């Protein structure tokens, strides 16, 4: 390519080598980048392997069987009772409260943002929702303990509500997942083509009728996906329940009672001095594995639903 080569080329014909040049650097870089991508697979395998290994040791104890673990109603590691139901039950109750708060509010917010709000209003409201989504969960935990619990106790009566209770944790968890559900639902609603709305208006439908009877059904798959992701987030949430829901397993259906959740138990046990290869240590892996399987399954389900039932308009 240099000037010198052109001059020599003038005198005698040169042969150009048009074959692909071996470029070792390119190959090295590509394999490094591939390795970066594989790290994520290794992470999943690591989670499954490490959690599975310790959980295997846990279930290897002759006193503990998988059936007893999943159906036992008493969790007292001190006397060798490992029934996960009390922990699972309070996880489900707090998540249920959270979803009951967050789903109606989230969908209503999404409808308002995508169907009613002016662009100016959206530009104010969306960052506020983003800030709400960015607040660390430990701060939500503080909020639950210092604001929501006293509020509940003054509303329902101090004698009816424990200092640590599932209702307070669940309500604040609802506030925490609200931005997630509203933003996912809004994405689903915004993806519904404008022509559908225009057709509805042309038939004389009001804004409400268009939103509820045309846009919402069209975006339903996305909203269901958002709902499932919300459940998954609530099930895996740790700090709010660790701070506000109480420490100590308790098999109760009363949301105003204190009861430890699966995540709360893991946080409490691992927060103390934990020695390896004890039933305590192994039990957090068994619960962690259960938690991972539940949330991973919910995430996959959510993705499958939004892909499978997506209405395609083209």
């Amino acid at each position: 390519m240099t000037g010198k080569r052109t001059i020599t080329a003038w005198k005698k014909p040169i042969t150009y080598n048009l074959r692909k040049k071996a470029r070792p650097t390119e190959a090295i870089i590509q394999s490094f980048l591939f390795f970066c991508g594989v790290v994520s697979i290794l992470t999943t395998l690591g989670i499954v392997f490490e959690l599975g290994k310790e959980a295997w040791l846990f279930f290897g104890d002759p006193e503990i069987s998988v059936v007893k673990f999943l159906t036992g109603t008493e969790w007292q590691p001190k006397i060798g009772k490992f029934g996960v139901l009390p922990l699972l039950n309070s996880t489900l109750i707090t998540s249920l409260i959270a979803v009951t708060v967050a789903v109606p509010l989230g969908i209503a917010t999404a409808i308002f943002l995508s169907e009613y709000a002016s662009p100016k209003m959206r530009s104010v409201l969306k960052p506020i929702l983003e800030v709400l989504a960015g607040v660390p969960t430990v701060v939500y935990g503080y909020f639950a303990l210092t604001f929501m619990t006293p509020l509940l106790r003054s509303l329902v009566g101090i004698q009816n509500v424990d200092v640590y209770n599932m209702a307070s944790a669940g309500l604040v968890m609802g506030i925490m997942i609200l931005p997630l559900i509203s933003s996912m639902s809004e994405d689903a609603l915004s993806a519904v083509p404008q022509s559908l709305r225009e057709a509805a208006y042309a038939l004389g439908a009001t804004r409400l009728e268009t939103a509820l009877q045309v846009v919402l059904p069209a975006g339903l798959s996305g909203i269901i996906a958002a709902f499932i992701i919300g459940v998954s987030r609530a099930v895996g949430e740790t700090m709010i329940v660790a701070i506000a829901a109480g420490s100590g397993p308790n098999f109760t259906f009363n949301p105003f009672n204190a009861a430890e959740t699966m995540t709360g138990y893991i946080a409490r046990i691992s927060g103390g001095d934990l020695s390896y290869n004890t039933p305590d240590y192994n039990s957090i892996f068994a619960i962690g594995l259960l938690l991972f399987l539940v949330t991973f399954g919910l995430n996959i389900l959510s993705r499958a639903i939004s892909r499978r039932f997506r209405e395609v308009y083209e």
Partner: protein
Amino acid sequence: MNQIKPTTFGSDQEMQDAERVFLQRRHHHARLAQSVFQLTTLLAVIFLATLLVTVVNKSMGYVVVENQVDPATLSDRPLSELTAGELAQILRENLRKNRVRTLERAGFLEDQPKSTLVQLVETEIIQPEVVESYNLFPSLINRGNIIADAAVNFPNARVEFRYWLNGDFLVNSMASQPELAGVRSALLGSLQLILITIVVAFPIGVGAAIYLEEYASHKSWINRLIQTNIDNLAGVPSIVYGILGLALFVRALQPLTSGALFGVEGQNGRTILSAGLTMTLLILPILIINAQEAIRSVPDSLRQASYGLGATRWQTIWHHVLPGTMPGILTGTILAISRAIGETAPLIVVGASTFITSDPTGPFSSFTALPIQIYNWTTRPQPAFQHIAAAAILVLLISLLSLNAAAILLRSRFSKRV
């Protein structure tokens, strides 16, 4: 569908009336629903405001402080006006011999700087204790009552307005008394933790994003698997990453993470390095997804032009794709990092200590972090700890907000360029 039967309506007039009523009802519903939607959306704003007000309310207010020893009995002049010699004299007179000997291990009291001596006199002899504390709103509304109550209940105490988030709070380390505790070691711990996370996560995350966007063919099963896997990992609860970190970094890789391989003695695997690596795994999926979006926004024509000039794939990426997409990648990284700063659960599991009074000395030291400190103080029963927890939350929220502001600035610069 709605066939209007002639029998229903006697005349045109009646029919029009019925239709008008029907229409009015529909419009009424529509207006009603609109205000309901508006209100629910406003709720989100109200929640955020309540949360901030709760924290600010707790972070300042009147306190009733009682001294164990009245400073006036120690000296007739204020402490700050005394010389080092006089301060040392006070310490010798009022403390037990053993305590003085412990304090003098590093050198004679007289030789220490005056500020240290004043602090020693305060913490060792005067020992101010907050016996009663109030939130901001009661302090503003019931000022008179508070002062009157304090005069009755604690005759020897003084009432002062206290900002729990103050200069001392930022430079003091953890202490067992809430009045003296600060976030210094927690801030430094968080900072080092985040540094390790960035150094490890950024190259791997951007590398994976480049691979998935620029190299991977979407037909190959392994690439599809990687993509699906990353999307699903982003939804795994953070505490599960903590458990993975405990088993992998704290336990299995203990020689590496405790620094034993590098000649550091006396540590177990519960170090900043373990926590940083755990955080790396936690934020990688988010970082990769954000970086992928940024890379996708680079127009294909740019790549084609580069290939047309004979550039190789990597040359194209390095010289043309990455420069254009860097602000986007950085924005995504900042957002991922701000997630890591606030995460608490994985740190609890990998074993951040809650009572650390010294600064972290490097990747192999045990540590505490800001969210851990908040968690620890929140769970203490004494009310004064709730106040310093609020102050620590303010520190955390302010640092997160400034990070997000930086991300927004980057984003707006980026959108102007393209």
